[in-house]
């Protein structure tokens, strides 16, 4: 599949902000970041050093966005395959270089080139269809909440799980995994919120606060995903949002 060079160039121009330009220039390539990286610490291969993740991005810039499939493939391997954007390397870098920002910029280029990894692309498509990255239907979500509340009420008879309660203090959101595959986690969350007497509400819309767009480097979807949570919070008039892990 040929790479859409025009799209890559457009994203590249948009992403070359003040921090990116500064950090790509001052990185001393001293390798101290490797001390902080869980990839490198568990398997000390030079290609696992956080500073290595800057190389494909610098190559894209050097070529002025004239990328080919081979470079995009390498960029994907390095910038999706060896980084969780945890920012631990930033804590070890004497300059405090935000490698996560640079990795995300590299991923944006992959997105523009049409090379979003399949798993992330599927989660994003699920979100577009159902509002959560695992494609749970609305009724499934509501039923799971009811089911776990009933279970919890056997232990805490007064337990509540208010749905769309306007004016509550806290709106809680979830990772859809906790609803679809590990409902006992939902049980535990509800137990904690009830036990500490929090004035909370669940929401029927915008309840998935994981943001795959943030991970994949897709700005449009990232904005849509956080936008859904913000819209729910504004609709319910809550004071704060509890986001998922």
């Amino acid at each position, binding site marked *: 599949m040929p790479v859409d060079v025009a799209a890559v160039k457009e994203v590249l121009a*948009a992403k*070359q*902000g*003040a*921090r*990116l*330009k*500064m*950090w790509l*220039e*001052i*990185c*001393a*390539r*001293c*390798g*101290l970041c*490797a*001390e*902080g990286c869980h990839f*490198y610490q568990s398997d*000390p291969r*030079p*290609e696992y*050093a956080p*500073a*290595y993740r800057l190389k494909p991005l610098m190559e894209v810039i050097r070529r002025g966005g004239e990328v080919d499939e081979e470079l995009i493939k390498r960029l994907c391997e390095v910038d999706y395959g060896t980084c969780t954007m945890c920012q631990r390397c*930033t*804590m*070890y*870098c*004497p*300059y*405090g*270089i*935000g490698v996560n920002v640079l990795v995300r910029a590299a991923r944006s280029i992959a997105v523009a080139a049409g090379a979003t990894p399949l798993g992330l692309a599927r989660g994003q498509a699920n979100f577009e269809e159902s509002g959560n990255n695992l494609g749970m239907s609305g009724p499934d979500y509501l039923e799971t909440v009811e089911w776990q509340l009933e279970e919890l009420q056997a232990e805490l008879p007064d337990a509540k799980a208010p749905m769309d309660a306007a004016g509550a203090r806290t709106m809680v959101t979830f990772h859809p995994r906790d609803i679809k595959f590990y409902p006992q986690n939902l049980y535990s969350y509800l137990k904690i919120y009830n036990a500490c007497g929090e004035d909370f509400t669940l929401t029927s819309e915008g309840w998935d606060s994981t943001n795959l767009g943030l991970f994949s480097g897709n700005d449009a979807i990232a904005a849509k995903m956080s936008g859904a949570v913000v819209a729910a919070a504004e609709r319910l008039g809550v004071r704060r949002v509890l986001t998922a892990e």
Partner: protein
Amino acid sequence: MDALYTLATGPLLMFSFAVFALGAAARVALFVRLARRKDLPVLQGFQPHWAARSILHWLIPANVTAKASPFVTGFGFLFHISFLACAVFCQAHVVLIDAAWSLSWWTLPDQAADLLAQAFLAAAAFFAARRLLIPVVRTLTTPADWLVLAIAVAPMLTGLLAARQIGDYNLMITLHALAGNLLLLAIPFTKLSHMILFFVSRAVTGSDFGKRQVGAW
């Protein structure tokens, strides 16, 4: 040779100082200007208190990297401190500045400057050895890294040789003056710009960590 020396310590030096000072200031100004167009959260999120904490935290070798990499940290501080001390407080430098502008300040005894120059070269050798021997650093290293290291080492090496009168003194002192000019000129345009951008970068990251109240790091 004398004419070259006179140029390198006179008009050329004035030019290099101007490029260095204006260039350094311009780097900060350009960062802010670009941030205004393309990185607005950096400016909106700026927190002077956290920026200062972050800078201080990394100007004192008592951070996580000092513990994780004590040798790199030790040689790193030695490298920078000995360089700045020799550049600013070397007697010969202050004498020249005094002659040009009637400005003068405390100077290092020659023996101390000699010792600091040796320490600097030892630290430079340590960093060169890392680039050659440690697989991760070797993989990361680019030709530009060697060039910049050479630009930083040249003034100190030629300065030490000139001070000790090893080799042809006239040649050595001329090379020393030229190498000093080259270094000043290179600072705004290479990764040596970290002389200024270190503070900008730490301010940005310090403010970011401050926003999340996770310590200075």
